[in-house]
């Protein structure tokens, strides 16, 4: 576990990059809610990178195929779903195999298998607060 592996080290002011790996998750430059729904391979967390530890170009290059990158504010992510009783958080989650530094995970995202309606709702909220990252 890295020195960044706790939520206290990630300030609410920080910005995250989230790579959008599928073309169909971007329509006319706008990310779709589908990009924020957990899949089994996600192991319960959404993968992101911290903008202050990596670059947009590096984030794009880290993936074999990357349709685009969107940004999220950590503070907004943490506030997502509070009305629904959720407590989303962002934690440092860098692994030895990560090709670029600054990997962070959004945790406490509803699992669509357990609570599908809430999972879709949170996906909508994350989509609405995300912005397309430009060079």
């Amino acid at each position: 576990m890295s020195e960044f592996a706790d939520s206290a080290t990630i300030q609410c002011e920080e910005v995250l990059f989230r790579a959008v790996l599928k073309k169909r998750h971007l329509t006319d430059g706008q990310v779709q809610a589908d990009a924020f729904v957990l899949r089994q391979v996600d192991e319960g967390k959404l993968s992101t990178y911290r903008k202050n530890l990596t670059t947009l170009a590096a984030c794009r290059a880290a993936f074999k195929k990357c349709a685009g990158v969107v940004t999220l504010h950590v503070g907004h992510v943490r506030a997502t779903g509070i009305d629904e009783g959720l407590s989303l958080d962002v934690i440092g989650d860098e692994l030895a195999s990560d090709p670029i530094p600054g990997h962070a995970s959004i945790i406490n995202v509803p699992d669509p298998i357990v609570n599908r309606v809430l999972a879709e709702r949170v996906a909508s909220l994350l989509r609405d607060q995300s912005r397309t990252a430009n060079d």
Partner: protein
Amino acid sequence: MAVAGILELPSQYEYASNLVGTPPTIQEAAGQINCTGGRSTESECPEWMTLYYRDKAYAAFVDDLFSLYREEDETPPCDHVADWVLGSTVLAKRLLAQNWGGPRVASDDEGGLRLSWRAGDRELRAIVPADLSQRYLYWQRGTEYGGIPNFGSATLYLSLSEMNERVR
């Protein structure tokens, strides 16, 4: 429209070309198209295919769905999921007619399909996983949202109709 010699082949011929690479059950549903564009099997043509030939908007949706089988970054849906989605969208298209807006189609990477409609602050998502018993509709109107489990074609039609009504 494909042209062979002086004969203008019917749209079925074009559709057969779209089916390249699609799963066997879909191929079987489509039946073998002979060189004159006629159907060589005696099985009944699925409703969605009849609609495909007659309706450009629906054809665009079907083409979009089948292109999932060819896109490198997509996981093709299971045959039975594609069959179910095609079969259950016909009623909505027929009843909504020109008010039908084709959904955005994506795979869920686990053999299922996700269809999404959006109009203003209203959204409808038909989530059809590989386990069809887990299918559901997710709807959203501004800050209100909810889900409808185990939906069928009639519920899909009603939900789309309601979404269109409120937007108009």
